[in-house]
């Protein structure tokens, strides 16, 4: 219950943050404008709308995840509100897990709102609900849970939120590009490059595997097995990140 109290408070802080609404409003506006331009163009206009909108949901989701993920922990440490929490019978692991759950819940609300806007726009033009978009939104949410985990990890390790934010964005970009590591792990690669690529392959999050936008846009069927595997991967990677964050946070001193 202590974890839930911390999660609820974290979500409340995030949802009362005006910056969140600014980003969210801008994201919905971008999706709507894309729909208008898309509907006016010739050819596969709705494919363009869906592709662009899913990308927008992912990018704005990442912006929100990084902003909230990095700031939430940094603010607690910087303003020392954490002292009022950890002086109570609350374990540090409960604090980290509570923070993560609160942020994940906030992102779920954000992604649901953006996806619902997109589905609504598509219904307005096509007259039917594209369930693929819902799957696409869910995949974005899985990706964002990993991004939030990375943001919390770097917030617990580095001192400034700016640096933590930069590292998180770098990890996101690297994670989205993780597929290219296969080129460097081939038999032709020399020893050092192969070893480095292999190490990165195991360390970096394979966010590229959670990017299902192409399948959704072009109507390719996504099997339940693929989705379950993606969810299991995101859960395992996030859990590992949280365990590492907790291990580091246990050692931290609050001067």
């Amino acid at each position, binding site marked *: *219950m*202590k974890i839930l*109290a*911390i999660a*609820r*408070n974290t979500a*409340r*802080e995030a949802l*009362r*943050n005006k910056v969140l609404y600014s980003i969210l409003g801008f994201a919905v506006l971008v999706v709507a404008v894309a729909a208008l331009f898309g509907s006016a163009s010739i050819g596969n206009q709705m494919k363009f709308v869906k592709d662009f909108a899913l990308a927008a949901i992912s990018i704005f989701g990442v912006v929100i995840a990084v902003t909230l993920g990095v700031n939430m922990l940094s603010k607690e440490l910087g*303003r*020392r*509100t954490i*002292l*009022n*929490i*950890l*002086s*109570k*019978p*609350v*374990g540090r692991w409960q604090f980290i897990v509570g923070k993560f759950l609160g942020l994940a819940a906030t992102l779920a609300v954000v992604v649901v709102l953006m996806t619902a806007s997109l589905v609504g726009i598509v219904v307005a033009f096509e007259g039917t609900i594209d369930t693929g978009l819902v799957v696409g939104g869910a995949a974005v949410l899985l990706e964002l849970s990993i991004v939030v985990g990375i943001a919390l990890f770097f917030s617990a390790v580095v001192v400034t939120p700016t640096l933590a934010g930069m590292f998180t964005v770098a990890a996101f970009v690297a994670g989205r590009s993780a597929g290219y590591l296969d080129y460097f792990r081939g038999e032709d690669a020399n020893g050092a490059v192969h070893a480095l690529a292999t190490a990165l392959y195991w360390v970096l999050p394979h966010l590229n595997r959670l990017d299902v936008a192409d399948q959704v846009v072009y109507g390719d069927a996504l099997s339940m097995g693929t989705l379950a595997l993606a969810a299991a991967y995101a859960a395992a990677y996030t859990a590992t990140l949280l365990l590492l964050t907790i291990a580091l946070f246990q050692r931290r*001193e*609050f*001067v």
Partner: protein
Amino acid sequence: MSTLLAVEGLTKHVRDPWTMRRTCILDHVDLTLDEGELFGLIGHNGAGKTTTFKCLLGFLRPSAGSVRFAGRPLDALARRQIGFLPEHPYFYDYLTVEEALVFYANLYGIRGADCRKRMDELFAELHLDVKRKAKLRTLSKGTLQRLGVAQAIVARPRLLILDEPMSGLDPAGRHHMRELIRGLQQEGTTVIFSSHILPDAESLCSRVGILAHGQLRDVVSLDQDGDPAAYLLSVRRVSGDTLEVLERLAASPPQNRGDMWHVRLPDPEAVRAAIDAVRGTSATVESLTPLRVSLEERFLAHVGDSGSLDE
């Protein structure tokens, strides 16, 4: 009275990350607190008061020493019975007073009807009722400090740790805070608080620890019912022979003003001997005054009155 908190050899070193030079912030601090006691920890800025509290609560890892609460190590379980008010407490300014207090109550596992009942009690006790729905960012320093105390006592702790509770408060705010602390102690809560305002400590505490440069230099008992530190005998028309006797008994050379001699006597035995020496002579005893400990004298003796307290 049983010991509630026992601190033994508490030491904290920090290392400069660049030069790796080691600095001692706390140096073998020994301290015990009895159940129901009101203890003051005074010291100059940087003396180690906040560091002591942070080591007690696990925010800092002690380099050496132990902390025991009710005979057990001070862990998360023990923190159920401890309340803490940090120096300059910060809160989530997007919350209302009620939301903040409910959140802190939930962290102690207080929920539902128990939580609502406790909220009503705290709002009445700390005069926060009119601010119940106010956003924290709109509150004055005094009200925030009261909220800080409220979150610290929400679970009715056995031990209350207050770090500079009077800091930044106006005279009325300080008076209210003193009354609040006194009331909590009278209800049975053991209280330890830090301050560098000596009159606050003097007016509240039964014992005061003087912390200087990381060392607990002295623990002063301020109990007015206890033994005085010395006695001041004032005598008129003292003859030369009697004065010689008094000089031998005195803790320091007697002072005279006109025909009045003031003799500082170290203990009751010296007082008895001095009265015997005066009795039967032409001298008359004007007064005998027990001298209580002057906290300021003791404090300055350890900290030094030449240096700034804000070093």
